């Protein structure tokens, strides 16, 4: 019996020939990430115990991307704690200020994650790096603290679910719509504890940016990790980062064992809208009632990459945002911001009446920059629409792709570009 790509990466890091779903194994870790919300808890755990050394500072990545530039004194103190911890332990990968981007946009861009890596992060969307053919999963602060000290963690080998995408995509259907459609089909716990592997001719056609969007949202189906086996596109992307690290290519064997195989004919999928208050409450944008909105957010670790901004700008070029609507654009990283500026996209957003925010997580989690008031509604390219996610408990978030977000900003209600 063969193995899946997820099983192969875990086996390689457990020093084993093979592993089986359900087994508990101890693995060495290549990258251990935390941010300004989760790192302080981990740092305090280590410091209060007087543990003086970390296993390998090169493998630790600290990104101050959630409440920065500092929202208040406590968030400033949290970043200071990270900065001092990085200095004390000689951690080279600490990002703040003009160096900071959203962790899951930043790490792949900088070549800090390569195919075949085993990555853990104190952020649930760490699963994003599966698009590079890495095993990447989210954990909490204590797990990360333990791994910083030991260089290892424990894992239960997940069962694998395979999703095969074929057919021809309709206009304005993006990677975001494919993953929202799947979550709508299987539910927010449909892949709980499992690996979601995406493959098929449509996945091969997808750009890296769209693949990141898909693996990013695997956690929204409860998955441990999302993964796409590396291909030429992946290797080209990784080469262009200039990383000195060597990729290791793992792919699933033809006789690998799958808990379930899903086939998705994308020809049937229209652009999706996930209604409040679960990412699984999906409907076609063409079949919804008129939902007036107060805010549009374009950005996040789901859709804050350059192609996302290009999609939005393609709709907004020469148009104006509806007078009632606030359009907030959050480039995912300094590189994305620079590129958007060079391509004239920033100018398009400004001329349309949008606000450009610094690369950060921003309003996605309702803490900083663009928080919603009571009963306000937002069309957002982010990944979660739970109760109170973006602000007041009575506010509502509708999850969409960048095309739909942009056209909704113009119309003042949720709609597709071809209906403007």
């Amino acid at each position, binding site marked *: 019996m063969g193995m899946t790509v997820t099983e192969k990466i875990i086996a390689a890091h457990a020093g084993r020939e093979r592993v089986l779903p359900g087994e508990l194994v101890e693995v060495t870790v290549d990258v251990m990430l935390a941010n300004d919300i989760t790192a302080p808890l981990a740092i305090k755990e280590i410091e209060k115990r007087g543990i003086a050394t970390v296993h390998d500072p090169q493998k630790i990545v600290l990104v101050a991307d959630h409440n920065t530039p500092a929202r208040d004194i406590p968030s400033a103190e949290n970043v200071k704690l990270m900065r001092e911890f990085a200095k004390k332990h000689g951690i080279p990968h600490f990002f703040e200020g003009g160096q900071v981007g959203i962790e899951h946009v930043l790490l792949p861009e900088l070549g800090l994650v390569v195919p075949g890596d085993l990555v853990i992060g104190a952020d649930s969307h760490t699963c994003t790096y599966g698009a590079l053919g890495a095993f990447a999963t989210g954990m909490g602060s204590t797990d990360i603290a333990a791994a910083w000290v030991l260089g290892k963690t424990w894992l239960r080998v997940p069962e694998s679910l395979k999703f095969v995408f074929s057919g021809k995509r309709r206009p304005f259907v993006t990677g975001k719509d494919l993953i929202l459609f799947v979550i709508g089909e299987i539910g927010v716990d449909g892949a709980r504890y499992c690996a979601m592997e995406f493959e098929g001719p449509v996945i091969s056609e997808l750009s890296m940016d769209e693949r990141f969007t898909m693996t990013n949202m695997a956690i929204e189906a409860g998955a441990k990790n999302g993964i796409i086996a590396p291909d030429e596109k992946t290797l080209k992307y990784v080469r262009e980062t200039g990383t000195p690290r060597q990729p290791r290519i793992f792919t699933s064997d033809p006789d690998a064992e799958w808990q379930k195989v899903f086939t998705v004919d994308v020809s049937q999928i229209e652009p999706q809208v996930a209604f409040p208050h679960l990412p699984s409450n999906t409907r076609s944008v063409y079949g919804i009632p008129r939902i007036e909105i107060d805010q549009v957010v374009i950005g996040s670790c789901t859709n804050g990459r350059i192609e996302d901004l290009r999609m939005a700008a393609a709709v907004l070029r020469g148009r104006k945002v509806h007078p009632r609507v606030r359009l907030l654009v959050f480039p995912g990283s300094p590189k994305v911001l620079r590129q958007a500026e060079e391509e004239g996209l920033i100018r398009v957003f400004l001329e349309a009446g949008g606000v450009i925010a610094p690369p950060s997580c921003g309003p996605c989690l309702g*803490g900083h920059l663009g928080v919603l008031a009571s009963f306000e509604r937002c069309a957002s390219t982010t990944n979660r629409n739970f109760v*109170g996610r973006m602000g007041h408990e009575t506010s509502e978030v509708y999850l969409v792709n960048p095309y739909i977000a942009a056209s909704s900003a113009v119309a003042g209600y949720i709609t597709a570009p071809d209906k403007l």
Partner: protein
Amino acid sequence: MIRGRAVVFRDNVDTDVIIPARYLTSTDPKELAKHCMEGLDPNFPNRITPGETILVAGKNFGCGSSREHAPLAIKGCGVVAVIAASFARIFFRNAINIGLPILESEEAASRIREGDTVAVDLATGEIRNETTGEVFKAQPFPPFLQEIIASGGLMNLVEKRVKANS
């Protein structure tokens, strides 16, 4: 043996309602506890008796963020255990790592009612509804997870390992 009165919640209780992100600049369980479940039930503090409450919920409890502040807030309220039909995996790890006792039982989650007195035995996985006399069986944890719980959390074990090596 842990004993408490049940406070019952629905399926898919996510980390954003357990502790909204705007409070995450704190890492103090007592401070976090003030806002626990704020998004779901503003009356939650009145339903809790510290040291005598067991939280019971449906499937996928703790879905969403990796924020460990969520189990810390629950523990900070004085909740002594959580029983759910199923847990989201990051929440499951976090709860064990910080020493918040949790048990997974679909049957117990569907049968226990608000206000029932419930007793749980973590070593055997037995859940007893003392109000109705019903007994349910949760899967006991594998030995190494029991070791983490018995040590009072993961970092106590890590500390032991570090000191043994130095």
